C-alpha cells in the first residue's frame, strides 16, 4: 500500500443556491519520495482535493459516503476523513502532512514573528522544549537557504522578500518532518528566476527528507520540472493521469491536449495561440455525462452527454477517461 491513497473522493458544498459538486470520484495514490502533480484550471477542484487531506475545507463541505483517504504511517493507518477532534486532526495538520500556499505573504500571520509561528507549530507536534524548537527553527531557515537565519527568526513576514518568505514557509512546513507535503501553487506568486530556485530547493528536500509531495499548479511547465507523475483535473474529476513524460508527450484526453496546445511555443512565436475553447461551466450547471463534452473538440454526439466514460488504461501506467480513446482502440 502506498503512503497516501485517496479513493472515490466525492465532495460537495452546501450553499444557498444548493449543493455544488466540487470533487467527483477522485482517486490517486502517492508513494514515498514521489512528486505527484495535480494540474487544472482554477475551479477544477485541485485545491479543494488537497485541502480534504487535512480536512481544511469550510464546514459546509460534505464528503460522499464512499470517500476514503488513508495515510499509512509507522504507527498504523490513519483514516483522515474520520478524524473529528482537533487533537486527532493534528496528525494530518502539520504533523504527517504539511501544506504550503500560493501567497507566502498572506500565509504568515502579519503581526507574529516568523520564529514564533515556527516554534508554536513545533510545540504542538513535537516534544521539544521552547529553546530546542527555536534552535531547530533557525536550523531549518538556514537549510532552505535563508541568509542570517538567526535574525530572520525575529522578523515579520513583511520584512522579507517574496522568495525568502516562500523559503521560510517551506522551512516551517518541513520542520515537523512531515511524510507528505502539499504544495498549492507554491511558485505562482514568485518571479520566474526565484521560482526556479524554489523548485530546485523542493526537489532537493524531497530526496533529503524522503517525503512525498502533492504539487498543485496550473502551470504545465512547472509540472514538467518537478513531478514524477501527473493527474489532470477538470471540473472536479481526474480526466487523465500517468507518468509525467507519458502524459505531456503523448496526451490522450482532449482536455490535456488542449492545455498543451494552449502553451505558447518558443520555436514558433508567430503562430496564433490555440486556447481551449469556451469557459469552465458554472458549478451550478454541471454538464451531464462527460464533464468536458461542452468544450470538447472530439465530442461524440449522443454519447458524451449521456454517460460517463470509464477510466481506460493506455499502457505505462497512463490512463484517461474518454470515449474517444476507446473508439481509437476499437478501431485499431
Amino acid at each position, binding site marked *: 500500500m502506498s503512503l497516501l491513497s485517496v479513493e472515490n473522493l466525492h465532495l460537495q458544498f452546501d450553499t444557498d443556491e444548493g449543493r455544488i459538486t466540487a470533487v467527483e470520484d477522485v482517486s490517486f495514490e502517492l508513494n514515498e519520495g514521489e512528486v505527484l502533480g495535480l494540474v487544472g484550471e482554477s475551479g477544477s477542484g485541485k485545491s479543494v482535493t488537497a485541502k480534504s487531506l*487535512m480536512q*481544511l475545507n469550510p*464546514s459546509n463541505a460534505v464528503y460522499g459516503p464512499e470517500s476514503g483517504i488513508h495515510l499509512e504511517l509507522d504507527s498504523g493507518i490513519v483514516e483522515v476523513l474520520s478524524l473529528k477532534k*482537533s487533537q486527532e*486532526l*493534528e496528525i494530518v*495538520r*502539520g*504533523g504527517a502532512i*504539511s*501544506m504550503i*500556499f500560493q*501567497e507566502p505573504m*498572506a*500565509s*504568515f*500571520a*502579519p*503581526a*507574529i*514573528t516568523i520564529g514564533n*509561528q515556527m516554534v*508554536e*507549530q513545533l510545540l*504542538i*507536534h513535537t516534544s521539544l522544549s521552547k529553546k530546542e524548537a527555536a534552535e531547530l527553527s533557525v536550523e531549518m531557515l538556514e537549510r532552505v537557504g535563508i541568509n542570517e537565519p538567526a535574525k530572520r527568526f525575529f522578523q*515579520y513576514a*513583511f*520584512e522579507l522578500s517574496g522568495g525568502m518568505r516562500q523559503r521560510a514557509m517551506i522551512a*516551517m512546513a518541513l520542520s515537523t518532518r512531515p511524510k507528505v507535503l502539499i504544495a498549492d501553487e507554491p511558485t505562482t506568486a514568485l518571479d520566474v528566476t526565484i521560482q526556479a530556485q524554489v523548485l530546485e530547493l523542493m526537489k532537493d528536500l524531497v530526496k533529503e527528507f524522503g517525503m512525498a509531495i502533492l504539487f498543485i499548479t496550473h502551470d504545465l511547465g512547472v509540472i514538467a520540472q518537478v513531478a514524477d507523475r501527473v493527474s489532470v483535473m477538470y471540473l472536479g474529476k481526474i480526466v487523465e493521469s500517468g507518468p509525467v513524460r507519458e502524459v505531456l508527450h503523448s496526451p490522450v484526453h482532449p482536455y490535456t491536449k488542449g492545455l498543451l496546445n494552449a502553451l505558447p511555443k518558443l520555436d514558433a512565436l508567430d503562430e496564433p495561440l490555440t486556447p481551449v475553447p469556451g469557459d469552465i461551466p458554472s458549478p451550478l450547471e454541471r454538464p451531464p455525462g462527460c464533464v468536458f463534452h461542452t468544450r470538447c473538440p472530439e465530442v461524440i454526439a449522443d454519447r458524451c452527454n449521456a454517460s460517463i466514460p470509464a477510466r481506460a488504461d493506455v499502457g505505462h501506467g497512463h490512463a484517461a477517461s474518454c470515449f474517444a480513446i476507446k473508439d481509437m482502440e476499437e478501431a485499431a
Partner: protein
Amino acid sequence: MSILTLVIVSFIVFSMMELVPGNCAERYIAFKNTQGQNITVEDIRAEERRLGLDKPYLIRAFSWMGDVFFKGEFGDSCILRLNINHLLSDKVWISLGISLAALFFSYLVAIPIGIYSAVSRNPIANNSVRFISYLGLALPSFLLALMIMLTTTVLFGESMSGLFSKEYRDAAWSYAKFMDFMSRAWLPVFILGWAATAFALQTVRALMLDEIGKLYVTAASARGISGRKLLWRYPAKHSLGPVINSLGFDLNRIFNDLPVVALIMTLTEMGALLIDALAFSNDQQLAGAILVVLTATIVFINFVTDIILALMDPRVRQGLMG
C-alpha cells in the same frame, strides 16, 4: 503631531470666538442692558480696556492660547462672570467619566460578542445579536432615555433623572457622594453605551469575518493550531487594530449624544453647558474653553490608541519609526 493639532484647533476655536459679531464687553453690557441698566458707549470702552480687548487680534489669540496651554487657564466667562476653570471643573470630569465609561462598556460588550457572532454558526444567537445591534443603531439615544425614564417612573414611582441624590447635590466629593454618583450614573452610561455598542459590534463582527477568511488563518490551522488559540492569536489579534483606531472617533460620537441625553435626564455636565453657551447665552469664552477641552481629550485618546497600535502591530511600529 498631536500637539500641533491641538495648537491649530485652539487657534481656530479662538478665531471663531472672534468672528461672532460683538465682543465680550459689548455682550456683557448688552446683557446688563436687558437687566434694566443704562449703559453708554464709554462704559463699553472701559470694559474693553479692562478685559484687554483693545489689543490686536493676534496678540490676544496668543495670550489666550498661552494661558490655556501653559497655565491651563481659560479666563472668565463673558456672561456669567465666573472663572471658567471653576465652572467646568466637576463637569469636565463627569462628562469625560460618563463618556469614557460608556465607551469602555460598549467595547467590553462589543468585542467578545462581535468575535463570537463572527465565528458562531448558531443562527438564533447570530440573528438576535443582529437584531439587537440594529435596534441600537436605529433607536435614537434620547428616545431610549425617555423610554427608560418613563418606565422607571411608572414602575418605581421615582424618577431616575439627575446624577446625584438631593442630599449630595452640593456636597463636596466624598466616598458616599461617589457611590451615590455611581448608583445613578450607570443609566446614562448604559443609554450612551447602547448605541456605541451596537456600532462597535457591527465593526468588530465585520472585521473579524474579514480576518477569518484570510489565508494565514487557514495556514495556521493547517499547522495544527486550533480552538481558542487559533481564534485569539490569529484573526482576533489582527482584527482589533482598526477597532482600537476608532476609539477616539467613538468617544466623539458618544460625546455628541451626551447633551441630548443629559437634557432629558437633567444631568449637569459639560455638553449641555456647551449648547447653552453656544446657542442661548452666546458665551464665546465658555464655549471655546469647552471645545478645547474636548479636542484635547480626543487628541489625547488618539495618541494613546496610536501607541497601543504600535505595540500590537509591527507594521504600524515600522511605519512610525521609519
